[in-house]
């Protein structure tokens, strides 16, 4: 029942019995003050902003005018749930940096912002008068008819009452008949009110939803296929790691052992020297393969989880790293892997580019969202747009519906922050 929208409810025979007509009426009625408020704000910002443009204060006001659509749309999305419970997603992207300037820049570049501005202007100039007309007519007609006996009793003291400027009710029976007519008209009006509310709701959804419904389905499917790709990529990583570990690495250990034993027999030169060289080569190969395997997929991540793996990473880092985690336990494997490699990339950047003397990794779950921050005291100036590493991290995290935020003003400090929502934390 909850998932019905007004459009569907209208076609059902029980439409009149449920709360739908009332919800529709409430939807239209509340639209009026919203529209008036938006109109007031828009006019005020436009007039004052234009007047003050010369003294520069006006420019931020005009900027606010451009952005008015955002709160209006947010309110309208909530209000829409009165008549259409299916929530509309937020069409806005998260800014890729922290700070108000980055937020404004991102918003101004988005088509959604401009669509929302258009909608706000529509609300201010077109929609609220329509809503006021429909709601007002219903209230005036039904209210007027229903109130006839009351008016007769309270105001005219049993004398004649003029009903809706159309006719006269002269006696109480007549007055009650008129009131009865008003009560009978209520369900009749319920249909046009519902229809207008449905149309208003559909218009809201059409203008404020991120893309059309067909696009939504495609996006969902794209998300799933991206997830499958990442999973397949992970599985392949693990397979390569296993093959190297169980195959090449064991053989090299055995080879090194055999060479070690051979050297014990201490053959004369030049064979002894060659054996020593071969032994050293095997040892060097072992070190390389160990590091290679570690880079492909660290076993400690599988065995001990994110915290142990990041601590291990910190141990290896050239820059001293403080690690602090407050996690409720193990996280789903694909989350651990994605976050681990993200932290890997962040720490690699710290070591390579930042010139930092100290870094810190901090991970915790706040209101169901996993937040992991990597900060350093380096020179700043990092940019997701430069280099493929950070972009790759952002892509991987976005597969989990999470995002990467980077704050790196010139002069530092750099904060690299990952948010992974709780939808990804539930297995």
């Amino acid at each position, binding site marked *: 029942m909850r998932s019905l929208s007004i459009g569907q409810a209208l076609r059902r025979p029980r439409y009149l019995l449920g709360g739908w007509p009332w919800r529709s009426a409430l939807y239209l009625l509340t639209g009026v003050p919203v529209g008036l408020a938006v109109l007031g704000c828009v006019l005020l910002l436009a007039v004052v902003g234009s007047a003050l443009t010369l003294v520069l204060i006006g420019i931020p006001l005009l900027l606010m005018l451009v952005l008015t659509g955002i709160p209006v749309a947010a309110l309208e999305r909530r209000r829409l749930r009165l008549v259409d419970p299916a929530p509309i997603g937020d069409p806005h992207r998260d800014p890729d940096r922290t700070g108000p300037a980055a937020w404004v820049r991102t918003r101004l570049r988005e088509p959604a912002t401009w669509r929302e501005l258009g909608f706000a202007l529509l609300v201010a100039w077109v929609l609220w008068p329509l809503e006021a007309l429909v709601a007002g007519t219903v209230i005036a007609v039904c209210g007027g008819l229903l109130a006839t006996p009351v008016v007769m009793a309270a105001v005219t003291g049993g004398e004649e009452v003029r009903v809706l400027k159309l006719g006269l009710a002269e006696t109480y029976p007549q007055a009650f008949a008129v009131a009865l007519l008003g009560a009978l008209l209520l369900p009749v009006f319920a249909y046009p009110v519902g229809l207008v509310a449905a149309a208003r709701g559909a218009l809201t959804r059409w203008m404020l939803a991120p893309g059309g419904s067909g696009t939504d389905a495609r996006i969902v499917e794209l998300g799933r296929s991206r997830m499958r790709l990442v999973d397949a990529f992970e599985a392949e990583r693990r397979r390569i790691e296993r093959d190297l570990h169980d195959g090449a690495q064991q053989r*090299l250990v055995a080879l090194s*052992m055999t*060479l070690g*034993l051979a050297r014990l027999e201490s053959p004369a030169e030049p064979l002894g020297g060659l054996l020593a060289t071969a032994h050293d080569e095997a040892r060097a190969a*072992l070190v390389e393969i*160990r590091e290679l395997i570690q880079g492909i997929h660290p*076993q400690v991540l599988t065995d001990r989880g994110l915290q142990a793996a990041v601590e291990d990473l*910190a141990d290896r880092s050239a820059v001293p790293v403080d690690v602090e985690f407050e996690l409720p336990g193990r996280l789903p494997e694909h989350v651990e892997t994605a976050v681990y490699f993200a932290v890997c990339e962040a720490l690699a950047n710290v070591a390579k580019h930042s010139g930092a003397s100290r870094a810190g990794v901090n991970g915790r779950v706040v209101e169901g969202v996993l937040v992991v921050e990597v900060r350093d005291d380096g020179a700043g100036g990092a940019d997701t747009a430069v280099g493929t590493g950070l972009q790759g991290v952002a892509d991987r995290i976005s597969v989990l519906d999470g995002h990467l935020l980077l704050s790196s003003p010139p002069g530092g400090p750099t904060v690299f922050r990952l948010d992974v929502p709780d939808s990804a934390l539930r297995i």
Partner: protein
Amino acid sequence: MLRIVLAEDSVLLREGLVGLLERFGHQVVAGVGTADELTAAVGAHDPDIVVTDVRMPPGFSDEGLRAAVALRGARPQLPVLVLSQYVQRAYAEELLDTSDGTGVGYLLKERIGNVEEFVDALQRVADGATVVDPEVVRQLLRHRRDPLSRLTAREQEVLGLMAEGRSNASVAQAMSVSEGTVSKHFGSILTKLDLSLTDETNRRVLAVLAYLRG
């Protein structure tokens, strides 16, 4: 001669290790390929020392290490040498946390190649010493760099070698200095790290490691 239970799932490596250990006069009383077999073999043979890989069937995760920790829980005096393909502080720490870390070793598998050093480490673990791979020690040192930054490079080197469970003579030899110099360095390390001096090699390694692990 040591009676050894050996757990290693790679047949190639297991056979090689058996040959190597026998070459040095030890006896492998059981060579097994899974963690469960390891536990059973220790019950059946009561060996002088257990040598096990970290990653073992059936899960190819850290079953070997877990089995070793469990065995030490049941028989605290049982010497265990764990071979690992990873330089992983977490694994070494878990092992060192069992019965004061006496008679345990955590070595990278690649150390087997230096056959004499490997067999020497095995003997030391069997005698109750603590042996930690130099790579892992290096990681521990790095992890705790704050207090250790007070040590000179030379002193850090001495500490690293000592954490491997070496005697002063062995450290002196490895660094090509006299034993006197080593004890002088060690005295200054203990002072700088606020550790009290005992002359038993094993205890001082433990003290150092305990300190490093915080």
